[in-house]
């Protein structure tokens, strides 16, 4: 197999005595979109700035498949481009802004004209080309900023929370367009965000950063479904996380005690002691207690509905079964089953949906 497109090793960045970034290994493959998520201050933006050669690392190397040697400044900068949270437009027209990167590369005027028109079309801003950059709305400005980066046909596109300043309807539209364009161009992309929904939508692979370190990295669905620490579980929206301890094995299932209650999980070797148990709310089904139950589901708990929150397309139903468990249920199901607060229901989930996180891993995760 060929070596990774981008390869980071032993990368450290310190400001004075504070270590902002400390990444042992990270690789990005050609054509993939790696999303980096994590709380504010995790070092996500610093990592992008180092990759973009905008700051120098304290130690370590960043190697690109498309340039000889490491940390080579302008040469690398001219092969990639970057979009920031603020649109950072220059004074002048939208055309001037989109053309900027080509102008500094001394591209002939006639070629600039052609490329600007084509990229503006792609982002739906053709009608704005002669508008002043200062007159744009937030969403338009960010489209210009993205066009300004894409026109350079970068080997690697770095996006630093590009949606974070937009209001939700504007963001939804731009996100859908960006998804379409990135799929079409098959560009290699690193996308930094603290919004899990953006990462879920766009990412091929997902890296979770915290306190300067990459805690988990893998295919997006794997990080979402199998977070390796409590903190990641919280961040990727695994709402049902409970402290428990492994009590033994019965009938091939792992028995986990949460206080008085026992949950069955798929048995994997080497599990023992104190654990976090997490069940994603979309994997919990709810049926009224007077109906027949689905068969083949190992975990069934009787409880009363404590809260029904309408989240638009689906409801969050919180059921108190001795412990509070959340389920996401479509509006249609809630209506058809006539669910209401204080109703007695069964909350059920399969043993294979129970994800186990060793509680020792906290020491590592919270650093």
């Amino acid at each position, binding site marked *: 197999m060929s070596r990774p497109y981008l390869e980071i090793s032993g990368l450290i960045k310190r400001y004075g005595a504070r270590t902002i970034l400390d990444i042992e290994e990270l690789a990005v493959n050609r054509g993939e979109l790696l999303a980096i998520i994590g709380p504010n201050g995790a070092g996500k933006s610093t990592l992008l*700035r180092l990759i*973009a*050669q*905008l700051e120098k690392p304290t130690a370590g190397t960043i190697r690109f498949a498309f340039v000889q040697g490491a940390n080579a400044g*302008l040469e690398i*900068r*001219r092969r*990639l*481009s*970057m979009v*920031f949270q*603020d649109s*950072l*437009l*220059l*004074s002048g027209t939208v055309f001037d802004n989109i053309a*900027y*990167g080509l102008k*500094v*590369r001394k591209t002939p005027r006639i070629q600039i004209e052609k490329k600007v028109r084509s990229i503006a079309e792609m982002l739906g801003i053709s009608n704005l080309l002669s508008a002043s*950059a*200062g007159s744009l709305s937030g969403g338009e400005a960010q489209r210009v900023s993205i066009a*300004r*980066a894409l026109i*350079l046909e970068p080997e690697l596109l*770095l996006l630093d929370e590009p949606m974070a300043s937009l209001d939700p309807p504007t963001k939804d539209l731009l996100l859908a367009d960006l998804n379409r364009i990135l799929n079409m161009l098959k560009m290699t992309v690193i996308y930094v965000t603290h919004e899990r929904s953006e990462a879920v939508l766009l990412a091929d692979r997902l890296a979770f950063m915290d306190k300067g370190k990459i805690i988990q990295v893998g295919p997006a669905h794997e990080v979402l479904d199998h977070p390796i620490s409590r903190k990641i579980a919280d961040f990727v929206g695994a709402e049902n996380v409970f402290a428990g301890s492994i009590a033994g094995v019965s009938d091939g299932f792992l028995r986990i005690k949460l206080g008085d209650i026992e949950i069955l999980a798929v048995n994997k070797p080497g599990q023992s002691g104190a654990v976090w148990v997490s069940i994603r709310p979309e994997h919990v089904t709810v049926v009224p207690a007077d109906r027949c139950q689905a068969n083949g589901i190992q975990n069934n708990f009787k409880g009363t509905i404590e809260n029904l929150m309408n989240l638009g397309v689906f409801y969050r139903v919180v059921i108190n079964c001795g412990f509070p468990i959340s389920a996401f249920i479509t509006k249609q199901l809630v209506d058809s089953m006539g669910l209401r607060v204080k109703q007695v229901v069964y909350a059920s989930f399969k043993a294979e949906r129970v994800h186990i996180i060793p509680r020792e891993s906290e020491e590592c995760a919270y650093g």
Partner: protein
Amino acid sequence: MDLIVEGFKQAIILIITGDELVVEATLRSLETSGLAVAVAILIGIPFGLLLALTRFPGRNIVIGMVNAGMGLPPVVVGLFVAALLWRSGLLGFLGLMYTIPAMIIAQVIIALPLVTGFTVSAIQQLNPKLKYQILALGATRSQMLFTLIKEARLTTLAAVMAGFGAIISEVGAVMMVGGNISRQTRVLTTAIVELVGKGDFGRAMALSIILLTLTFAATYTLTHYQQRGTRL
């Protein structure tokens, strides 16, 4: 009210008829302060860019000195320039005391921290990530500098205006090192002080009207561009 109204009437006549003293002091002020602000621009703007965009040991001390310089009383500047240019002073051999160059030196020292300081804050008012964005679009370091100056040009102009307004209306330092010598170093402000002492309110007001026109032109430009905004 008599003195003010009468003085104002006389002032208008003196300005219209081109009174010799009025013309002389005006031209001398424009010459002195114009040259001084030009020198301050040539030194202060590149120096301000350097301070705003680079990090070097002692940078904070230099910025502190620039800020302190912006609040330096002009009479103190006058004292030091006078001590330098005095017959027995370090540069006394140049014979510049009580000449226009002496006034220009004092005014440059007064204007320089203003021009430098305003340039620094003009660049710092730009989004600090703009520098990164420009580099990330493939600009070379000098292309980046040029683009930043272009983005901050309005605020930098304001810096120049603030400097000019400060030195043309200053009186202490130019009196100390220029001496208000008729037909040689008499400028608007020193002439006004002299004329009021003599009770010549007409001429003093004529000069004041001119001085006000010049300073308000500078202030107006300043606030105008400040309100138009340095934000994109």
